[in-house]
């Protein structure tokens, strides 16, 4: 993707340090025009730093950031025309909703008619007409969020940056806004980068997800791809609930490599490696099924149920498998039988749903 000629925003080998702390190390990312990208990672992973470099709040130590072929690095923030929505919204408390939205146009000295027309346009787009004369302190969190988005849209941004923009909202409103914003920005064709630590939000919003940790972009791809084909242990671990087993590579007859765990789980692997290498086998909780008797279909492994918890749409089973606690999430249909504690069960998983990755030095 990094050499993509059609890239609209292209970030190449960007690094940023704060004293001894490396916030970003050699990050590259290409974004097509009109694309919605979610930067996903735990707090402190560098996603907000990357966003602030794109927005012009800070300068990268090395590397280049280009928008439509022009370098952004030397353009001061106020001339980048990048719309930013902050987690705290950062609305102007001394201005009404209308004045907040018109602010970017006023400081650009647009014609009053243009200001009125474009403000009205975004105010209606975000359904803010009933509140135009209110001050931010007189609005609910969701309304403030809309004002922040409207204010950023009013300047017709070449790029939109959302920095944990929905995190301050309640769960229901947040999910509603995720969809509404994704639709709105997609329809407007605005290239957008969303920073979030919430996997659901990233998946709802992004055409592609960039997963980051410790200042490094681990993987970039569509939601399903990063979920189904994780390239690093971190990506695998961060998306969903995962149980891992220490294992070693062994060469089987026919020359193929298999990973064998101490608990006896055997997985074929397509990855490179040599016999004897330390690896880990990863199992996602929703890829595992349980049965009370061994079946021939998939790999089956005997264990005992240690704990069952009800999580709404699924029931989480904690299975003791040779000393390792395995998480298995099964659909929680009404009336479905629940494995009782201390019952012996057989763990089943499809061979292509087990991941074998080299033992990481995390």
């Amino acid at each position: 993707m990094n050499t993509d000629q059609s890239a609209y925003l292209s970030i190449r080998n960007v690094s940023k340090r704060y004293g001894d702390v490396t916030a970003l190390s050699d990050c590259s990312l290409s974004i097509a025009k009109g694309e919605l990208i979610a930067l996903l990672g735990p707090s402190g992973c560098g996603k907000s730093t990357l966003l602030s470099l794109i927005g012009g709040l800070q300068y990268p130590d090395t590397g280049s950031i280009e928008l439509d072929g022009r370098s952004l690095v030397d353009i001061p923030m106020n001339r980048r025309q990048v719309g930013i929505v902050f987690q705290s919204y950062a609305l102007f408390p001394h201005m009404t909703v209308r004045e907040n939205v018109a602010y970017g146009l006023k400081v650009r000295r647009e014609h009053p008619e243009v200001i009125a027309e474009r403000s009205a346009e975004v105010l209606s787009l975000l359904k803010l007409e009933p509140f135009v004369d209110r001050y931010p302190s007189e609005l609910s969190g969701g309304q403030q969020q809309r004002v922040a988005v409207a204010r950023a849209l009013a300047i017709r941004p070449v790029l939109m940056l959302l920095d944990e923009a929905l995190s301050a909202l309640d769960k229901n409103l947040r999910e509603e806004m995720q969809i509404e914003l994704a639709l709105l920005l997609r329809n407007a064709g605005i290239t957008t980068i969303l920073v979030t630590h919430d996997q659901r939000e990233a998946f709802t919003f992004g055409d592609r997800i960039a997963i980051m940790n410790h200042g490094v972009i681990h993987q970039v791809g569509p939601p399903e791809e990063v979920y189904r084909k994780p390239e690093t242990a971190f990506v695998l671990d961060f998306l969903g609930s995962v149980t891992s087993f220490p294992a070693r590579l062994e060469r089987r007859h026919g020359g193929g490599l298999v990973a064998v765990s101490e608990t006896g789980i055997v997985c074929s692997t397509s990855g490179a490696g040599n016999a004897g290498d330390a690896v880990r086998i990863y199992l996602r909780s929703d890829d595992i099924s349980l049965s009370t008797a061994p079946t021939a279909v998939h790999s089956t492994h005997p264990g005992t149920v240690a704990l069952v918890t009800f999580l709404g749409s699924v029931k989480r089973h904690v299975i003791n498998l040779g000393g390792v606690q395995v998480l298995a999430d099964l659909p929680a249909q009404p009336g479905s039988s629940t494995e009782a504690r201390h019952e012996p069960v057989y763990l089943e998983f499809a061979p292509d749903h087990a991941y074998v990755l080299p033992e990481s030095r995390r």
Partner: protein
Amino acid sequence: MSLTTARRRAPTDWLPYLLIGPVLLVMVPFFVMPLAVLLRNSFSRDDPRLLLVSDRTVDNYLRILGDGYYANIFVNSLGTSFLVAGITLVIAYPFAWYLVQQSGRKVSVLMWFVYLPLIVSVITRVYGWMVITADSGIINSLLIWMGITDGPVRILFDRTGMTIGMVHRYLPLMILPLYSALSRLDGRILTASASLGATGPQTFFRVTLPLSIPGIFVGIQLTVAVVLSDYVLPLLLGTTRFAMVAPAIYDEAISMVRWASAATMAMVTIAVVAIVIVATNLLRRWLAPWSRGQ
């Protein structure tokens, strides 16, 4: 539990009185009562032989509000108040803004310099200013030596010297509310302003300055109130040719022995301060309609 059981008193019944009691013990005999006496005296009559004659007349008020001599005193004092407030605002604002940008340790050191003048007695400082502003003082020696003036420029014992002294004395009262207002300003709002296309000056005049209006008004109100009632600086640094309220009341009461008249001047001063505060509050509400309840 039977109905005849005596109602247990909750601790909250007497706790408020216990908390504000000490303040009332000081304020009632030493502030409220003297004020009541002043109010009563202001409706009494001055008599050359009997001194204060009890009465219920508004003659004192009519005379003080109608006489050019008294009106002049109030005009002088109010004018000086706003002049001092204006000068301290211009000096304090950049300093407070600088202070807000600094980190914890530096702020503590700089704050200490703000508080320092409050620790040193004003009389001590007055004698310091005298050395500097006198006809034979440092400023005038320098002016004459540089050939800018032939003779000394009148600074000490004039409006200029008094104003300089007041600006220095009351600067902390302007810096502190400004610092407090500016430090509450969310830095991300300024970032948002820049991201929306505003230049530095645009952000200052459209965001920073309007948002510091409440702090500016608190500073102005404090400064105006203390300058209006300042006695020491007009007396030691000023001139009787530019009469100020507090020394004038002292003269009226002690030199002229016109207690009713002095009491009336005091009541008018209180009214003037009250009017200034109400008027500036209305102005603030008009300038910063978003700051309701702040």
